[in-house]
């Protein structure tokens, strides 16, 4: 299969290892990887801020670049939900609505693509650490993606998953919310991190680099003993 990767802006700039891991995983499974040159923003920041016209400008470029893809995989529940759930709404009553629906149908979040589309749960990965998993809100509630990441983690050699009480509680990031209301965002993050720390896990794992950026940003600032890692990075370890 030819898999088209959509690498979101902040993953490209700040978390390249997530993209690199995905390339390695899919190539190991025998698939060919394509990354479109000029598609780094799904338009979610504008969309979530209420600027739907501006979001459509971004999204239209993405639509054009990805329309011929066989399957599109995004290492983020958040950007994934944007393309999969919100594009059809964003393009409602425009000539592009059909293209948006088609793209939505073939776009998948990384972990759900592995488990539900490729039927793979065991990648032969090894990661001998105690971890806890953070459900990103968009992956969990927009994409209903509770099980796939856990199915994948269950097959990683040496990995011990300890669920935290607040696994499904928002980390407080919320895109522009994190800087528009930094005090609320930080308080939410403190609640989240306290729950993660209670598990005595070494790492918080997630399917979303944006959540991990928030969690890592806080624990590093407060010098708490907790590391963060994207699921793809674990699955690429052997």
């Amino acid at each position, binding site marked *: 299969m030819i898999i088209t990767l959509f*690498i979101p*802006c902040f*993953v*490209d*700039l*700040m978390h*390249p*290892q*997530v*993209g*690199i891991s995905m390339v390695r995983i899919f190539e190991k499974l025998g698939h060919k990887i394509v*990354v479109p*040159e*000029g*598609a*780094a*923003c799904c*338009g979610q*920041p*504008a*969309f*979530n*801020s*209420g*600027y*739907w016209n*501006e*979001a459509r*400008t*971004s999204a239209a*470029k993405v639509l054009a*670049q990805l329309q011929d893809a066989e399957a599109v995989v995004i290492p983020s529940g958040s950007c994934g939900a944007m393309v999969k759930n919100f594009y059809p709404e964003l393009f409602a009553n425009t000539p592009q609505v059909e293209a948006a629906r088609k793209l939505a149908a073939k776009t998948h979040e990384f972990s759900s693509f592995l488990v539900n589309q490729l039927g793979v749960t065991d990648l032969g990965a090894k990661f001998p650490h105690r971890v806890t998993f953070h459900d990103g*809100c968009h992956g969990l*509630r927009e994409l209903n993606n509770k099980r796939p990441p856990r199915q994948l983690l269950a097959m990683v050699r040496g990995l011990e998953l300890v669920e935290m*009480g607040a696994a499904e*509680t*928002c980390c*407080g*990031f*919320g*895109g522009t*919310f*994190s*800087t*528009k*209301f*930094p*005090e*609320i*965002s*930080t*308080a*939410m993050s403190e*609640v989240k991190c306290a729950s993660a720390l209670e598990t005595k896990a070494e790492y918080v794992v997630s399917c979303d680099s944006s959540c991990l950026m*928030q969690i*890592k*940003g*806080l624990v*590093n*600032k407060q010098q708490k003993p907790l590391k963060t890692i994207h699921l793809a990075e674990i699955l690429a370890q052997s």
Partner: protein
Amino acid sequence: MSAPATHFKEASRRMAADLRHRRIIQTAMVKYETVRDQRKLWFQDWQGARNLAARTKFEAVNHLDQYLEQFVRLIESRGTKVHWAGNAEQGREIIFNILRAKNAKVVIKSKSMTSEEIHLNDAMVAAGYEVAESDLGEFIMQLRGEEPYHLVAPSMHLTRGEIQDTFAQKLNETTTDSPEDLTMLARRVMRRKYLQADVGITGANFAIAETGMISITENEGNARLTSALPKTMVTLVGIEKVLPRYEDLALFLPMLAVMGTGQALTCYNTQYGGPRQPGEADGPEEYHVVLLDNQRTLLLADAEQRDTLGCIRCGACLNVCPVFRNVGGHSYGTVYAGPIGSVITPHLRGLKQWKHLSDASSLCGACTETCPVKIDLHHHLLQNRRNASAPTAGKPGFFQKLAFKLFAVVANHAALWSLTTKLSRLGMKLRGLVNGSFFDPTRAWTKTRELPPIAKQSFREWLKEREL
């Protein structure tokens, strides 16, 4: 920024850093979640129950004209006087007319958020009436001069010790801080008021069209006394509280209890069909029902957000909301706090003044996931944001709009993005010079969180090098 926005910014900032408040609310809510989840299991199919509840309320709301008419015809047939209030002022005036006609001096009230919505207490007190709240939580709030903190649990932010102190100061009576002692003290005070009261005012949880009845749910029996002891009873109810059939209560009463407090069923669920009928031993001599619109028909006309009229005010969305849990009910400055309040307040009181509440959300969707009548809460916040940025909504943020426009062009253009990657690294270096100061564009983030560095090699740079 509007005055409500300034209040919210200031209050939420203060509360978010209040660790004592955080501990009280988190503990209470985690306990609530545990019992709620146990009780949910008593339903054979909780999701099925939600679907049915959503359908039932949506049917009621979509045929509000018919159901209201039926409700009014039937409840009037037993001698109830029904009044229609278009707005808050009319609602207050109708109630004042009743009070004047009855020559009332003392009014006893059971819990009613709708009465908070029309600021009835303040108006009655200003007009010289003695007003007593009989719900324990509301009674405490009234003594303290505070607005209800939470629409189901008005004083949940207080500890027993604080309630003990409030009673000592305001009632001049000392007691221990045990729940039993505190309740007995409140009860002694309230019992006197019930006997003095000329008029009892209640809210309502449901108005049943099929039988023409008001249904009131409560745990303390205070609403029953409020309705039974004074000679005149008044019920203030929003027009959206209609349920089509009596049997709908079989679903909605347990659902309200489970989601509101984690109980299987609330202690008292009473249906009122009218004043005392010939041959009956108790009940008020006169019964008035005031049906309040107050912008609800505006929401009804909004096809996108009409489902919000299905809200049964269970408070479940507040309980699970991480923003509510951290900023508390008073920060909102609204009658209805939490997710449902953030969605409907811009409709009820003006988008321009209240749009900030829709921004103050990470859109995590915990509210939508829990709502028993499946109101699409967090997507409505998104729609409010969209509506707020429309040119018709006043001055949209010019710079924000421009920034999004530019970003759209740059991020989806290969060469420009490559340039941005390099400029970002330079930007991060330059930021070091202004680190944390007023000129640091990232200070809203970096004050409490570290900023991840721009990678030495971006993903796209890695890919390019690999393909060479």
